């Protein structure tokens, strides 16, 4: 039992959270183990983002949350931030930095205690590595305000990776990405999670991407968990239809028909 607890990267136990004292999500419990990604899906307003913000400790919550078996209430903010990183959708950028400097910000917890807060050679090498991963090394000196939406999102992915977290939370990061990069992002994150003691928890607007990311789904509706389990079980069990109140399977099949004539 103890071993299993340690395998558990993240444990949520009857967690509730909301804004201005009114709970938006109620009584959420689940576990995420290493290498096991989870997609949170559900119609707009079901509380996906609220749940994600609570896990990221941006929002206060009631109930229990544990990282690696240790309650986050007993952890310092920095310790939590060292384990959980968030990749969110691009929002207002008012001040411009170079691509390299932006990714270096992800190293904050690694460099803040060094002498004068100067990044070491290892920090620079790690940032370079992250930029290679997202294929932006050639752009490292460019200003981020001069980049396209897709490039910018890859800069933020690199910054997230630079944090060296155990868990990456995805807050609809694919919104400004071309289809190519949407797929690449999800594929890359799957590889990343499989590499070590890691997991990805994603809120993705696109159901197809969500299914692609994870073998497990958490279906939410009206702030509660409606279904939780293996992706294929949920899809075949008609649970998506109940959450979205639309015949998802039929829609998917109809879309698929258009592609049947196209050769591989």
């Amino acid at each position: 039992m103890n071993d299993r607890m340690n395998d558990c990267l993240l444990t949520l136990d009857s967690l509730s959270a909301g804004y201005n004292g009114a709970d938006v999500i109620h009584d959420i419990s689940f576990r995420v183990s290493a290498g096991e990604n989870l997609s949170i899906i559900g119609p707009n307003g079901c509380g996906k983002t609220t749940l994600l913000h609570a896990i990221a400790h941006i929002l206060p919550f009631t109930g229990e949350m544990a990282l690696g078996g240790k309650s986050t209430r007993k952890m310092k903010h920095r310790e939590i931030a060292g384990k959980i990183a968030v990749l969110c959708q691009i929002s207002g950028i008012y001040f411009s930095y170079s691509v390299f400097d932006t990714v270096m910000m992800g190293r904050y917890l690694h460099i803040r205690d060094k002498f004068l807060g100067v990044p070491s050679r290892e920090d620079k090498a790690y940032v370079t590595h992250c930029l290679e991963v997202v294929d932006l090394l050639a752009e490292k000196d460019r200003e981020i305000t001069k980049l396209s939406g897709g490039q910018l999102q890859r800069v933020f992915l690199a910054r997230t990776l630079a944090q060296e977290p155990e868990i990456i939370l995805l807050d609809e990061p694919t919104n400004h990405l071309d289809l190519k990069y949407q797929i690449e992002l999800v594929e890359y994150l799957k590889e990343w999670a499989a590499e070590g003691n890691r997991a990805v928890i994603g809120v993705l607007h696109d159901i197809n991407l969500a299914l692609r990311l994870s073998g497990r789904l958490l279906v939410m509706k009206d702030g509660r968990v409606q279904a939780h389990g293996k992706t294929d079980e949920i899809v075949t069990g008609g649970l998506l239809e109940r959450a979205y109140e639309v015949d998802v399977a039929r829609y998917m099949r109809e879309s698929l028909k258009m592609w049947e004539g196209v050769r591989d």
Partner: protein
Amino acid sequence: MKTKIFITISAALVILVLGVSLGSVNIPPGDVLGIIGHEVLGLRLPPDIKPATVTILWNLRLPRVLLAFIAGGALSVSGAVMQSLLRNPLASSYTIGVSSGASLGASFVILYGAAIPIIGAFALPFMGFIFGLGTILIAIALASRLDKSMENNTIILVGMVFSLFVNAITTLMAALSKEQMQRLITWQMGSFSMKDWQAVYILAPVLLLGTAFIAHFDKELDMMTFGEDQAKTMGVNLKSVKWTLLVSSAAITGSTIAFVGVIGFVDLVAPHIVRKLFGSSHRLVIPMSAVLGGAFMVVCDLAARTVVSPSELPVGAVTALIGAPFFAYIYFSRRASRGVGRRAKKR
């Protein structure tokens, strides 16, 4: 980048010397350096310099120019902090009302001598700081109530309205104490005239320590320009850092305003130009805002005292003449680029 820093600092030094040298009586820059050498290092005074010139320079002009530099620097550093914290290039102590609050506090001291026994000479900067901080807290609380994200111009609008209100209280106080009215109104418009070394001795450490302290938070400021949530998930101890920065920047603004009156827009213009020249990294933005803001203020003061010589303009009017159109320019150029997709945020 090193060349740019070198050029900016050299230009600031040249401006300082010119500021001291030009005025109702022009003193050649060589003599300026000679007199400063004499007073500071005890060097022998060049024989052709009259004692009257020494008096003008050492007792009147040098403290005035130094005070202008210090005030400009302090205001600009706090402006840079406000802009980053509120993620708004239009934010500054002046536009969100800290200056008005500080001036109300200072008016109390000036009018009623607000006897605070122990702190004596520090009563003015202390009251300026307390009132400035109070204003910023109220303005932010009001703005966040009206608009949770605070990403648009609510904070600016609230600050403007609020500072008009606070100004009205100050004006009311002035009107009720007729004999002091003229003095208070002149002071409120902002000026460096009739200032002696005492103000320099008090404000110089405020600027130096304040800037050094704030510069220490360069990384956190960089990250917070991406939004508080992102800074937090990257490990910034948001609450404590944010409050520390707000309090320290209100402290340097409030104490400066208390000495020199309300001088607006320097804190908006200087950091903006610094970001254009040196990029957004606060490692440079903070110290260079001090240098550039200081130099800018010296130039404005020079204009204030020479353009209509022998009479004088309030320096606050000069900075506003330059700053207000600049404010409009930033506001409208931002609106023009609003359509960009990445600015749109969905919750």
